[in-house]
Structures are given as structure tokens and as C-alpha cells.
């Protein structure tokens, strides 16, 4: 009998091989908060935080004698331009305050950063931008969401 052994073990191996070759990964879904896994969990950063980090790095590179600043990758340049353009908060103290304030609302880091990046005006907008806010009972009423957004906008006002 020449038919290959079709035990479930060999079928699993076959199914996995094409996926590995094309590099398809398991579903990572921000809406359901499944992000990354493995020994070192990534920490989400807001655009305004990244702007500060990249600015600092850019200054370090400029002080290097071998013209380090001229050799930055396109990825760095585009990212720096992007975060500068899409940072809602520029002042480092304000940026810190945003994270502190949002941390009081039992948000997962990914949600915190999305809110800090997109700065919704209304509870409806916030819930549309961050669907994971809705289930789970952390924000039973829109009032709580409104309070959070209000706190955010106060930081902007006094930046």
C-alpha cells in the first residue's frame, strides 16, 4: 500500500509548512486586544512619546563626529516626520501627564495609546475608535468616557 500515512500528525505538519513559508502569523487583533506574544512583550508608545525619543536620538547622532545624522535610515526619517505631524501633545510634561491621566482609567496600554494618538472628542467617537472599550464593564456609562476625554482635553488646554 503506497498511500502516505494520513495521520493527523502529518496533516498538521503539512498545513503548517505553507503558512510558515508565506510567513502568515496567528491573528493579532487590536480590537480584541491580542497583541504580540513571546518572551518580550512589546509596550505600545504614543506618537508624542516616540517624537521625544526620536528627537533625542537625532540630537545624539548630530553630536557624533562621523556625520551620524546624515546616515539615518528612511524608516527613521519617515517615522520622525510622521510622529511630529501626528503628535497631539508637544510638551514633554504634558506627554507624561497624558499617560498618567489615562493610566487611571484601567485601560490596556494599546487602548491608552490609541486614545492619546487620536484624541476623540465624544464618547461615541472614542468607542468607535477603540471598540474594546465597550465590553467588559470598565466604562459602564458614557459619563465615565466623557470624564476621561475631558481630562485629556484639559491637559491640551494647559499645555
Amino acid at each position, binding site marked *: 500500500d503506497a498511500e502516505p500515512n494520513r495521520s493527523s500528525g502529518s496533516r498538521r505538519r503539512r498545513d503548517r509548512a505553507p503558512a510558515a513559508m*508565506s510567513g*502568515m502569523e496567528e491573528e493579532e487583533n487590536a480590537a480584541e486586544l491580542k497583541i504580540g506574544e513571546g518572551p518580550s512583550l*512589546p509596550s*505600545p508608545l504614543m506618537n508624542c512619546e*516616540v517624537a521625544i525619543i526620536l528627537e533625542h536620538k537625532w540630537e545624539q547622532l548630530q553630536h557624533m563626529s562621523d556625520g551620524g545624522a546624515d546616515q539615518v535610515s528612511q524608516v527613521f526619517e519617515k*517615522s520622525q516626520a510622521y510622529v511630529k505631524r501626528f503628535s497631539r501633545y508637544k510638551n514633554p510634561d504634558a506627554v507624561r501627564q497624558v499617560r498618567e491621566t489615562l493610566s487611571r482609567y484601567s485601560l490596556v496600554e494599546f487602548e491608552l495609546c490609541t486614545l492619546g494618538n*487620536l484624541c476623540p472628542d465624544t464618547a461615541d467617537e472614542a468607542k*468607535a475608535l477603540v471598540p474594546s472599550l465597550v465590553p467588559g464593564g470598565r466604562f459602564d456609562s458614557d459619563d465615565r468616557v466623557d470624564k476621561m476625554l475631558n481630562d485629556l482635553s484639559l491637559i491640551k488646554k494647559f499645555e
Partner: protein
Amino acid sequence: MFFHIVLERNMQLHPRHFGPHLRDKLVAKLMKDVEGTCSGRHGFVVAITGVEDIGKGLIREGTGFVTFPVKYQCVVFRPFKGEILEAVVTMVNKMGFFAEAGPVQIFVSNHLIPDDMEFQSGDVPNYTTSDGSVKIQKESEVRLKIIGTRVDATEIACVVLFANSNLDIACLISPRKPAY
């Protein structure tokens, strides 16, 4: 979205670099090799922010090169399914429009732009709603929802939904490099 992450890499160094500046040379090589690269798993490595640990070097048999395990911190950009992010329109034509979000380029096909938006050619090609209230042209800022990503070894293609100003998800958009 941007993430801060700790990664590990084995760096090989030629003996000519050994000496008092070994660590500096290792770090310089690390930055040169890794910054600006993209992996399916971690996304684009935007900048290395620090080196946490450099392990003991191991001489490779036969070559004299030494391998050092290096643990380093970096900022990466990695779009995720379900994420809503802002992007800048870079080019508009009758096929659709290109937008950029940091290092990632996204293509939004005209098939999937809302029906009530029409392409208008001219000096500044754009897509405009019939009542003229929403206009997409070069340098416009748009919000896109990633509804899927496909990663291969070196790049990420995003499937996005175009979110109009009312945040109604209007339509499905094909990625820059369709592979389905």
C-alpha cells in the same frame, strides 16, 4: 502603532575590531545592521534606544570571528488588525490613492472608496463627495482602520478600511501588494 521592545541578536565581529573600543564597534554594527529593517514579527525597527546586555563572545571554530549575543531596546512600528491610525495621502490617481503612516505605505483602491466620492483629475487630483464636504488629495490626513495584515519575512501589507469623517466604516480596501 509604535512599540518599545527588547530584542536579541547574535553579532559577529572580526578580530581586527577587538580592543578598547570593542563595545562601541559592536553597537555601531548593530545599529547599521538592524535600524531601518523590517521583520514580519516586529515590524519596522525605527531606532535602537539602548543596549541592555552584551554576552560573552564565542570564538567560531575555523574562522576566528567572535559571536556576541546582544540584547537591545528599540522602537518599532507595527500596524495591527483592528487598529485605527492616521495617514497622509501622498498620491491620488484614478486607481485610488496612496497614503503613508510612518514607514508603512498603504494603497487604497478606487473600487473601495465610498460611492459618493468621485475622482476629479486636474492639477490637484482628488476624490470629493458630491456635496463637496469631504475632499481627499495629496497631503490630506485620513484615518484608516487596518482590518488585516499579511506579513512575510521582510514586509507588511495592510488591508484597510477607509473611515470617513463620521467614522462610519465605508468600504474594504486592497493592500499595496495584494497577495490573496
